[in-house]
């Protein structure tokens, strides 16, 4: 048998993978795109409505508000999550006792289901925190409810982000530190000059992954506020799911999903390019 060249091998791997991906991602997306030009309810008969859904989208104050909320939420949650997760990963990767047990404990939030998280944190915000601080519930105030969701969402996703940072830290060879220690680099300086540049690929992956997760926030909102109080925490995904799947707005929300998709792709391409340039500089 003729030996395959390196490029041929790569093609033989890539093409079936792309085909699979096309079949279960792009193809349904194209069909969804089609629905965005109809008044489809999700079942039964429907009519073509042209660009009406898109025109409506741009004049819908509720959609606009959901974009503002989602982006404010995602930016704050991404920053909070990545700062804490990076610190936690450094800590858990440090010279500590009970490493496995600690790593195990910090991973639990990611496994708890939405019902549990909703109930427990609902309880904490409704009963325990007001009793401790003497204030009222964060969840019943339109000014603070979004931050309560940031806290819960970050609490859950720190586990995954930390895990990725920890596996990133494994690619940093021990001798880098030793070489650094000889030069007198310790603490912050060692992190900034030695560790961080080496884990930048993981930093950018985590930024993209957590940004994506937070932009698509849905579970925590269903569990904590269901969009309330006063519709102040309706995320884009919440509208797409609830009004598209649950309600009769399938066509309209498909249009919303298409626009949302384009917006996030644009952001992440920008993000990837930006961190990609950073990587090259180093």
């Amino acid at each position: 048998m003729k030996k395959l060249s390196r490029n041929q091998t790569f093609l033989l791997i890539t093409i079936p993978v792309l085909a699979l991906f096309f079949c279960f991602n792009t193809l349904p997306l194209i069909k969804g795109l089609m629905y965005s030009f109809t008044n489809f309810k999700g079942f039964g008969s429907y009519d073509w409505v042209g660009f009406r859904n898109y025109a409506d989208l741009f004049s819908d104050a509720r959609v606009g508000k959901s974009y503002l909320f989602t982006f404010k939420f995602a930016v704050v949650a991404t920053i909070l999550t990545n700062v804490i997760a990076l610190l936690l990963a450094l800590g858990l990767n440090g010279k500590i006792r009970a490493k496995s047990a600690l790593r195990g404990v910090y991973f639990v939030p990611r496994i708890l289901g939405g019902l549990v998280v909703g109930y427990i944190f609902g309880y904490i915000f409704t009963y325990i925190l007001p009793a401790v601080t003497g204030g009222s519930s964060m969840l019943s105030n339109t000014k603070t409810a979004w931050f309560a969701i940031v806290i819960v969402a970050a609490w859950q996703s720190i586990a995954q982000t930390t895990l990725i940072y920890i596996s990133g830290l494994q690619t940093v060879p021990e001798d880098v530190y030793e070489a650094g220690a000889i030069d007198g680099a310790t603490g912050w300086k060692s992190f900034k000059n030695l560790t961080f540049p080496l884990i930048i690929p993981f930093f950018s992956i985590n930024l993209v992954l957590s940004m994506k997760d937070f932009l698509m926030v849905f579970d925590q909102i269903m569990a904590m506020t269901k969009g309330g109080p006063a519709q102040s925490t309706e995320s884009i995904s919440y509208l797409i799911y609830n009004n598209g799947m649950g309600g009769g707005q399938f066509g309209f929300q498909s249009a919303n999903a298409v626009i949302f998709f384009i917006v996030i792709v644009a952001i992440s391409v920008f993000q990837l390019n930006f961190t990609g340039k950073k990587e090259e500089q180093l």
Partner: protein
Amino acid sequence: MKKRLIATALVAAMLIGTVLSASGCSSESSDGKTHITILQYKQEAVKAFETMQEEFNATHDDIVLEIESPNDAMTVLKTRFIKEKAPDIIGIGGDVNYSNFLDAEILMDISDFEGLSLIKQAYLDIDKNLEFVPMDGIYAVPYVANAAGVLYNRDMFKKNGWEIPTTWDEFMDLCETIKASGQQPLYFGFKDVWTCLAPWNALACDLAPADVCRQVNKGETVFKDEYREVSEKMLELLEHAQEDPFAYNYNDACTAFANGEAAMYCIGSYAVPQIQSVNPDMDIDSFVMPGCDTEADNILNSGVDLQFCVTNECKNKEAAYEVLSFLLEDSTIQTYLDDQNAVPCKNQEFKLSPALDGMLDYINEGRIVDYQDHYYPSEMSVDAQIQTFLLNGDVDKFLDKFDTDWVRYNRDIIRKVQEYEEKGGNK
């Protein structure tokens, strides 16, 4: 090492797969019998439906009945229509989903089904009203209904000698009396937006025309006029709520009411099982929301909680009717009532839950009006709009938005209704 691990894992998974598929369902319709499937959305009633299925299959040789009660049934149902594997009969609520199913032309006209004559006219009318545009024929058999108003703690009322209010002023006075005695009159779970609809619907039954949504669609009136009093009375109710009712959810409110933290709770009969799960011995009764100034004007808020429709996919109408007839037999209905807290739509006396005592006269007289929210498109999120309004207390802003949003979310329906009217309406 790694490869061996992976191979072992795959083999293990395949083994599980074989075991699971071997033990899975093997009932293919190769037995020459007619198979009728029902998909019903009351997951909590799964036990009652299992009993019904056994009963039916034990007494029928030619038809095999399969009842599915999946979790998140409405999503499952929609996927079945997409997959073109729709069940023969669906058991759904009489709400906007039913209207949408009708509009999507996926249900069969069953006006020749004899069992319909056994159903209370009030509930058949309610279903008729759910049609966006009046249609020929009948598309659903109302099975059981629920009712909403005010639940109260009978022991607390007895101990303090409080009277059941029959007018709005009496109701407000009662709240003042309860408050003056150092107790909590009402408890709300407004963090869950849908609970805002419970008092809203009950008040709207009393104060707004039953077909207000259809009137608006025809362009005959606007919500700003019809819902003003409802909105103002909602704000009055709120004055008697616990502190910060928007911090507590449905479950908190049920638990608080069950533990005697409040004397009354504006919610439907459907909440009774949840309340009694916390306090099984609690003596709960209910009264009709006294929204009007005279008792005679009050109307009970009651809607179809479960109804059966035959889908267009059904191949054997006769067999489906046979199943429907079986479901309407007194003993079958009693099986359901023993398991669930409900009001049967069949025109016959059944033994009902004591929690419905205060509503019994209204039920028997048919003095009922459907939940207003059954006409609201769910994507308009009227429940969230009511919550917003209760938070800021601005009646005009709320009603203006209600009217503009209504037109926006119901555009296609309004167009259909007006086309229908132009063609001469139902005359």
